[in-house]
């Protein structure tokens, strides 16, 4: 257990503290202000009820559900297991490939299907490309939250190249429906490997550029270091995962610790926050974990592109997927953290119950805990560093 955190409550004015020149006590009061659902920096339709004392945040109450689309109920009413995948796409719409993979993997494990090695490689490439695309948005919008507009557009420029790769592969730019149960919808197109290699060599210098203009900018560090500190124990108690957890210095990555796919064949590392600029687990650490993860993803992609085998892209599975009666929980590492799918089958063609454990939802729950006592501007920094996607929070 780390030391209990001391909140800067000295800032908070006590009743009767202010007196006028005639000695009359001024009444001070807290102000409740609505941040969202239509607010530039809540990253979607999140509503935060903020209790403020001047600029100091006394309490934050997140209200979610504005983007609830009954994904889990819909899944139960699909004619077969394949039809759930487009819905899964729309959960975390910034990382559809990772979501597809998580669901497909759960069904495959339930049915004990082995996929061909080429499929495993394609899935790793796609998931890591999508991880970079998703992190680019997290980093870019975080820049906007801090008032730096230029890095945002640089990030979108680079993300565009990844989307071009996806468009080339499956025709879609946002919601792919590419990773299917038992394989992928179709093979990589001609020239994809070269284009992906080009992207890797193009993107590496861009990360340095991004670091120069934003990550190591003095003002940016001042705004994010020591802000929104999430200690290790709190992070674990709140079941945070992904960059949120790793930013707090917990060395935990499902790609390595609960292996799936072919991640164990590549050489890469897990990035954790070290508190270089401030305290371990502050906003800068969480931000920097994402930046460094992009480099690790590049490493994985390069190795996968070099070692991709030839072969089928669909394993021989029955036309009607009808898993045995039973249930399974499979977790994968999405860009936001542990994405879990619980699937219960009653032996028919459609799932009896599908439950998604969405990382953004769980990570968001820690928000009030770490933003009390900060300033309003810090709250924006913290919300940005949690990197929520409301489509996944509300499902």
């Amino acid at each position, binding site marked *: 257990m780390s030391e209990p955190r001391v909140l800067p409550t000295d800032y908070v004015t006590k009743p009767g503290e202010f007196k006028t020149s005639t000695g009359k006590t001024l009444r001070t009061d807290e*102000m409740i*202000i609505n941040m969202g659902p239509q607010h530039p920096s809540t990253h979607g339709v999140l509503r935060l009820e903020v209790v403020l004392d001047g600029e100091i945040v006394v309490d934050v109450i997140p209200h979610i559900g504005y983007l609830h689309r009954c994904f889990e109920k819909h899944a139960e009413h699909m004619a077969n297991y394949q039809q759930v995948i487009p819905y899964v796409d729309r959960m975390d719409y910034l990382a559809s490939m990772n979501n597809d993979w998580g669901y497909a993997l759960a069904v495959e494990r339930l049915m004990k299907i082995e996929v061909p090695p080429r499929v495993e490689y394609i899935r790793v490439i796609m998931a890591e490309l999508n991880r970079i695309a998703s992190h680019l948005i997290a980093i870019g919008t975080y820049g906007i939250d*801090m*008032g730096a*507009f230029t890095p945002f557009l640089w990030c979108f420029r680079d993300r565009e190249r990844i989307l071009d790769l996806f468009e080339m592969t499956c025709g879609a730019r946002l919601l792919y429906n590419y990773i299917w149960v038992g394989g992928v919808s179709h093979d990589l197109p001609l020239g994809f490997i070269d284009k992906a290699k080009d992207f890797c060599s193009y993107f590496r210098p861009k990360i340095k550029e991004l670091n120069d203009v934003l990550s190591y900018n003095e*003002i940016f560090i001042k705004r994010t270091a020591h802000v929104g500190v999430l200690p290790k124990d709190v992070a674990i108690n709140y079941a945070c995962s992904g960059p949120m957890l790793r930013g707090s210095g917990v060395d935990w990555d499902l790609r390595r610790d609960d292996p799936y796919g072919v991640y164990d064949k590549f050489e890469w590392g897990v990035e954790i926050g070290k508190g270089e600029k401030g305290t371990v687990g502050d906003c800068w650490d969480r931000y920097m974990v994402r930046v460094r993860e992009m480099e690790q993803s590049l490493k994985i992609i390069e190795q996968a592109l070099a070692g991709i085998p030839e072969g089928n892209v669909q394993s021989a599975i029955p036309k009607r997927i009808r898993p045995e009666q039973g249930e399974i929980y499979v977790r994968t590492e999405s860009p936001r953290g542990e994405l879990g799918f619980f699937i219960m089958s009653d032996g028919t063609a459609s799932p009896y119950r599908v439950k998604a454990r969405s990382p953004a939802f769980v990570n968001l729950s820690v928000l009030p805990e770490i933003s009390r006592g900060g300033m309003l501007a810090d709250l924006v920094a913290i919300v940005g560093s949690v990197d929520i996607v409301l489509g996944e929070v509300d499902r």
Partner: protein
Amino acid sequence: MEELLTSLIGENILAYVVLAALPLLFILPYALVTVWLEMKVSAHMQDRVAYMYTGWHGIAQPIADILKLLQKENTVPTAADRTLYWLAPFLVFIGMYAGFAAIPFSVAYIGSNIDLGVFYIIAVSSLTVIGILMAGWASNNKWSLFGAMRSVAQIVSYEIPIALAVLIAVMITQSLNLQEIAKFQEGGIQNWVLFGGPLPLTQKLLLLPFTFTAFLILFIAGIAEVNRTPFDLPEAESELVQGYNTEYSGMKFAIFYLAEYANMFLVSAITATLFLGGWNSPFGDFLSGPVWGLVWFISKGMFFIFLQIWIRWTLPRLRVDQLMYTSWKVLTPFLFVCIFAVGLILIL
């Protein structure tokens, strides 16, 4: 200019109205050009091209924007304080416009050649604070109120470093009249206050570090005074939606923007006049004269405008407490040291 006008029209109220309207002839085209420049500079920094279709490289787009804003409905929130709500943008504009009266555009033109020019500008430009506070309060929106409160705290704090930095130039030039200050720096780039003014060489060399510091601080505080990144907290988009002008639309919104852009030029003009020789040519008598003076003055101002745009699209934003820290614990103490040193050097 005043004599010229009175000889043309005669000594009557019309002459003064014309005289007073002259800066407007500059401000309006200047605002259009700067809006376009801001879009283009930011776009090229961000690997974009910005608007390209309205005229050559979208040069007519600001005009289209103004026309659009003119046609828009002027909405007033139901719970707003209507009088203050209507008055606020104009007060902001008046505060800015009155400042232009004492700006020497050229050796031949200054709106009002008053002896307390610098002091007058600092005093009258504070009027914008009241306008902003009125806008935030009258909108009856908590975010607007936040923006207004931040803005007032910020502008009031940053007036201290501005006044102190101005004081250093005044100590060297021995005048509060901006026209006199500009005349003091005649004779080429080496006579600018930034390089110590036309003083003996040893004094110039000793003054150099302090005038440079004062110049930099005046520029930084000027950015804060006009609420631009990294000091754009009053309208911090990601925190306060749009700050004090959240509830404004149409022409009233446009007036806020016009005032902001004109204010940018005002602080640039003060910096240029105090430290970079105002309308003086950097080459002594070469390319000098009333018309060239105007060209030099506007070029110097636009140079600072470009710097402001450049900084805006590069840096993130400070937090409120860091903003106050910068003003009170960094800029102001530095200037006190500078004032003390400059005073000593001038006595020597």
